[in-house]
Structure formats: C-alpha cells, structure tokens
C-alpha cells in the first residue's frame, strides 16, 4: 500500500501524524542504547534534557535518518529548537512537509 505522497514504510503508508509518530518511535528506539521498546516511548516527553533520552548528536542522527526513511527534506525554517521539542511536535512538522510533497 502506498500513501498519497508516495511515502511507504514497510507495508504501511505514512500519511498521518500518528503514522509519523509511530515511525519516529521506531527510529528513536533503535537509537537509544537502552533499547526502550517503541511503544514505551512517550511522544510528549522532551526529546532532549533527559526526557526521551536523546543527546544533540542523536538528534542530528535522527534528522538525517528520518529524512532518508521518509524521503523528504526539512526546510531550513523547520530546523529550529521548537520543532524538536517532542515527538508529537516533530511529527506535525514532518507530516506538513510530506503533504507538501504530495
């Protein structure tokens, strides 16, 4: 199955904020040394500062990984601290970009 914007992850299209959150949780889960299961990650916890547990290097890695996996590119205007407050906020930014590339 393919989303209207053409983005597909495995068998599932990425077409909504919830889908993007699910993808982000998977990616973050893979990145964390503690291997927290994806469904245990709180999408509203701060990404940095001890919330989800990412550091600045991981955040840069997350950005590059998610762009590759979902086949889009953040606009420069997206790259601001508030966009990376938590996974929900980030998912909204990404979903908006995916819709634009539709």
């Amino acid at each position, binding site marked *: 199955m393919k989303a209207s914007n053409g983005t597909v992850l495995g068998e599932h299209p990425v077409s909504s904020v919830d889908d993007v959150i699910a993808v982000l949780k998977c990616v973050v889960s893979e990145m964390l040394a503690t291997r927290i299961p994806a469904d245990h990650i709180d999408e509203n916890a701060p990404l940095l500062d001890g919330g989800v547990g990412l*550091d*600045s*290097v991981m*955040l*840069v*890695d997350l*950005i*590059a*990984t998610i*762009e*590759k996996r979902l086949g889009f*590119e953040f606009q*420069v205007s997206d*790259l*601001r*601290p*508030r*966009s*990376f407050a938590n996974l929900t906020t980030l998912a909204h930014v990404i979903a908006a970009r995916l819709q634009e590339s539709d």
Partner: protein
Amino acid sequence: MVAVISDKDVVRHPEAFLVGSIAEPKGQSAVLGAIVIGMGVADLQAIRRFAKLGVVAAQIRLIKDSAHHQDVRRRHATYDETGVSRCRRAMDMLAERYGVERFILMGNCALANICFNTALVDTRVAGLVLTNPFVPQSSIGILLKLQRHLFRKESWARFFTAWKRPAAAVRVGEDSSSFPEDSFSKDIMLPADFGARLERLHSERAVRTLMIFSKNEPSLYYCRRFHGKAFDTLARAGALRFEVTETEGHDFSARDDSASRLNEIVTDWTRNTWS
C-alpha cells in the same frame, strides 16, 4: 534544496572527530567549504543555509568519544590540546572529498576560539564566524563585570532576591570552582593580542570575520574594551562585521529566535562577502 549526507558515510577519522552531517550544494560544485563545530539545531540550520549559497558545509563535533563529551573537564582539556589539529583534519576531509581549498570556520564559545586559532596556523581559512568567544572570568575583571551588571534588570532582581532570601538566589548547577577555565592555555584560549592578530590575518591573508554576540555575553564587554580599536579598523576596511543580537542565552541553539537570528546574519554575511 541541498543534499544531506549523514555521518555514517563520511567519518574518515573516527578517532579524531565526529561528523554530524554534510550539506552539499545541489547542481553546482562548491568552491568554498565550511566547518561548523557544534551539534545544535542552529548549527544544522547553518550548514544547510551554507549549502544553499553554494558552500559545502560539515557539522562536526571535535570529540567523538561520548565519555569525553559528557565530562566537561575532560572535554575542555581535550579541546585545549587537540582542538586545532582536529579542526584542520575536518578541513582535510572536505578538501579530499569535494576539492575545496578555502574554508569558513564557525563555532560558539570555546569552539569559536578554536576556529580563530586554527586560522592562525592554516592558510586555507578564508573566513571566520565567531559567536560568543570564550573569555575566562579572570580576564574580564571586576570593573567590566560591574559594568555588565549595572544596567541589567535581571542582575538587580537577583541582587534584591539575595538580599531578602539568600538561599533562593543561588543558581543550581553553577559551580565555577569545578570548572578549570584558568588552567587552559592553548587551543581554546583567545590570545591576549587577539585584535592585532585578527588585523594581521586580514592584511596578510584577507581573512574576513563575522563576530556575533548575545546581548549579555561577558566576552562582548571584554572584546570591546580590549580589542575595540582593532575591530573598528577592520570594520572600516570591510573585513569585520560585528553584531550584537537580542539573544539572552549563550547557546544559539536553545531558542527558535536565537537560532534564526544567528543564521539570518550568517547567511547575509556569507552572501555579501563570498558571492
């Protein structure tokens, strides 16, 4: 649009530094490279803006080892010993990969000083973006400290809080005694004749500099007081742009408006200086 390459493809010196990502200009070959030292969001924004202007830019951290990264003492001691050499290796990497021979170096705080000290020894450096360069408290002096606080309402508010409730005025996590800033002597220190050396970099090698400060940054007062004449001379010659932003904090990646303002200035300077 820019092409972005993640670190896994490009770490050439795994023991030396860590590449966060590289932003390449699309559809044109770069004639200039940029090394942005820092892993903040503002730094990521910076490399992408550089790429849009035709500059291939790498976002790096000078220490790969995460244990060093977490431990402030070890991190700063390592910066002090090897910061310049690692910065030069990062330039080697971009030169090897993209054929660029001239570079802009950009860093904040101690990393700004490493950029400057790298320029002193490496003729490939053509431009510097120095934000909030690090100056030890001991260099700032009591008069400059007083001058800095005299007109700040935050300082007065803290003073009155301390007057009423001394315990409430103590800043949590601030332990200057644990920070060995006076033990540094090499790569992360600005030389005492910083202004004169900046002038020489311009006269001998045409190095252009952009300095950006947060409005309450202690080093702003130090730089103006001790190197103001050199800055004026350089600014008149078009070799220095000196900006003080409304940013409160030291780290430009901490807030949206700080990150945006920083990058607007860097973009404008790059466009006007290097196009």
